[in-house]
């Protein structure tokens, strides 16, 4: 990982991709956080917005999730800093589980939390219909890659859609022609061989249903005190869409033998790489990206802070039209294997 220079005084250009703010050409920097400590680290490092998973309703595994009380406290801290909180509710619950999920929404809205990230078109449409005040993002797991995809999600009622960092600035420029939806791009992520949202290799070799952790409403004692029907449902561990990255056994990270008929040709890994498009921050901003998103709810505060700070510097350098000296934003190689 490259050394991190001290942060320059933070300029405060207006951002886009942020409701209620003027639209300018400065993209929002959206940081992950998997713990209360990571939330604080992201804020100090210069994130404009932070996304977290709500325990039991976000794809789990190596990713961190916040319990209800932690979420409320994170929201308080983020709002006090003048920043934004987004909550990932990106499992795909069954009907009965969905009803319980929807019961949580008024409590979120009561606390001023209205930015949610979802992973299923049915859930997205139902949430928008029932809670029109929500601001909904179609998760990267929805698989959007094109202008046509962005138009679909806009028509469905999404306020934002997340594209993978494999999308180029030139493609972004084409996609940005779709108006009335915020375009986010995951500029820092692990690209695996199979596209996000289009992989069920892990569950092919091992699918293991397990009970989701309960979401404790404010004031509840602990999970053991809840009746059985209060538990939100089953996490399909091994399923990328329903169980979660990090709980997918990472079979693509293991060596495979390649055979042609009965003849072994090679032993190889599936292609995989860490994408860091920090040197193209200016190109993405010029192409119209509203939000630059970083992957990594499983990151420790110690790893997260320099990553966020690097992108903060790149965005700010771009905003004042200086020549950025951003180098590359890197993480230890092991991180790309153990979590995203």
């Amino acid at each position, binding site marked *: 990982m490259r050394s991190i220079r001290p942060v320059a005084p933070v300029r405060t250009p207006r951002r886009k991709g942020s409701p209620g703010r003027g639209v300018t050409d400065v993209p929002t920097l959206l940081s992950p956080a998997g713990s209360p400590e990571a939330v604080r680290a992201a804020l100090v490092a210069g994130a404009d917005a932070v996304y977290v998973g709500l325990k039991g309703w976000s794809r789990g595994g190596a990713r961190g999730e916040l319990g209800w009380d932690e979420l409320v406290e994170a929201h308080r801290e983020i709002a006090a800093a003048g920043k934004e909180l987004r909550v990932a509710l990106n499992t795909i619950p069954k009907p009965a589980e969905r009803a319980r999920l929807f019961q949580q929404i008024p409590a979120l809205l009561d606390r001023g939390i209205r930015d949610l990230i979802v992973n299923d078109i049915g859930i997205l449409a139902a949430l928008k219909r029932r809670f029109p005040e929500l601001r909904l993002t179609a998760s990267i797991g929805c698989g*959007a890659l094109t202008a046509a995809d962005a138009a679909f999600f806009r028509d469905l009622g999404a306020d934002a859609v997340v594209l993978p960092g494999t999308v180029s600035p030139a493609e972004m420029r084409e996609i940005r022609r779709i108006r009335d939806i915020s375009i986010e791009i995951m500029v820092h992520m692990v690209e695996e061989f199979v596209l996000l949202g289009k992989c069920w290799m892990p569950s092919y070799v091992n699918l293991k249903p397990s009970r989701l952790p309960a979401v404790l409403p404010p004031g509840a004692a602990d999970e053991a005190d809840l009746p059985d029907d209060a538990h939100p449902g089953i996490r399909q561990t091994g399923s990328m869409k329903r169980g979660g990255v990090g709980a997918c056994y990472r079979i693509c990270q293991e060596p495979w033998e390649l055979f042609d008929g009965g003849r072994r040709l090679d032993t190889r890994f599936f292609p995989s790489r860490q994408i860091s498009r920090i040197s193209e921050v200016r190109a993405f901003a010029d192409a119209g990206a509203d939000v630059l998103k970083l992957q990594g709810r499983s990151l420790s505060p110690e790893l997260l802070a320099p990553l966020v700070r690097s992108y903060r510097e790149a965005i700010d350098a771009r905003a004042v039209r200086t020549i950025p000296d951003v180098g590359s934003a890197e993480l230890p190689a092991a991180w790309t294997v153990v979590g995203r």
Partner: protein
Amino acid sequence: MRGRNEGRGAVSSFELNTTIANLKDLRESDLTDYDGVYLGDIYCRLYEANFLEQLDDLREGLRILRDQGKRAYVTTYAAPRNDFLPKVQRMLEAAATSGAEAVEIHNLGVLKMAHDAVPELPVHIGGFANVYTAAGAEVLRGYGAVRFTPNYELSLEEIREIAAVCDAPMELLVHGKMPLGVSDYCFLLEYEEKWGTKCPDLCQKELFLKQGDWAMKSVGKGILSGKDVCMLEHLPRLLSEGHRHFRIEALSEGPAYRREVGAVYRAALRRAAGGEGDVDEGWWETLRRHARIGLCNGFYFGKSGMDYSGIRPEAMGSLPTISRLES
């Protein structure tokens, strides 16, 4: 459609379909036992003479199917990029004007394009469209979807819940290699020089990725199950649960596979539709001969996709998954 007039028992009709990628394969295939065919390779624009790129071939393929009295469907790319879209648009228009009865769509952007450009063309939703919930299926109904292949990860119980709500038929993979993933990148290109084989011939090889008792098939940008999904002995259940549309996934297979496996399922469906559930020993032998790695049930019974539930796994050499990951 043969299936519609067959079976005088409890079930009076069914539809058995398959997939063919190019005109050469279509011309070489005996489609006697199929009711319909989806034309096109969903994984790669460079697949040899892909119907989705060769629009004159697509028109000819649709004509051939119509002349044979088959239902002529066209499929579409699972994960198109922005630069695909103009060609996708032309392909949709060609399908609509050349007699396609429906277009199978795996991508939501393409769904919107079809809805806007060719609203008269019925839409079948493919497995990569990620229909996991009835709510999702209902959304897609609003875009002209009249049939669904739910995500392959769903169990029969979950599929039943969707079917009960969305009031549209499900099309189920009953045999063949189940799609497991799609990529932007073809790693087989790394071997062009080493193997002395160029694209698009690379993915015509029979390539399997193996790790212990796990196996998957590579078709370049696509990953398929190594084992063949086999629902032969479960056809009576599928019919009793109201399913009538079935698919033999033979995109990466040869004409013999398509013909012989199709014949087994035509006969088995006819028998099951007549209220009988017996499975001929010869049918098993045919399926075993064509299954390089073995048989599985996919996710239909809520288990790992490579598991097999039923009376025949040992006979087929398809041992249930040994979960090394859990040890």
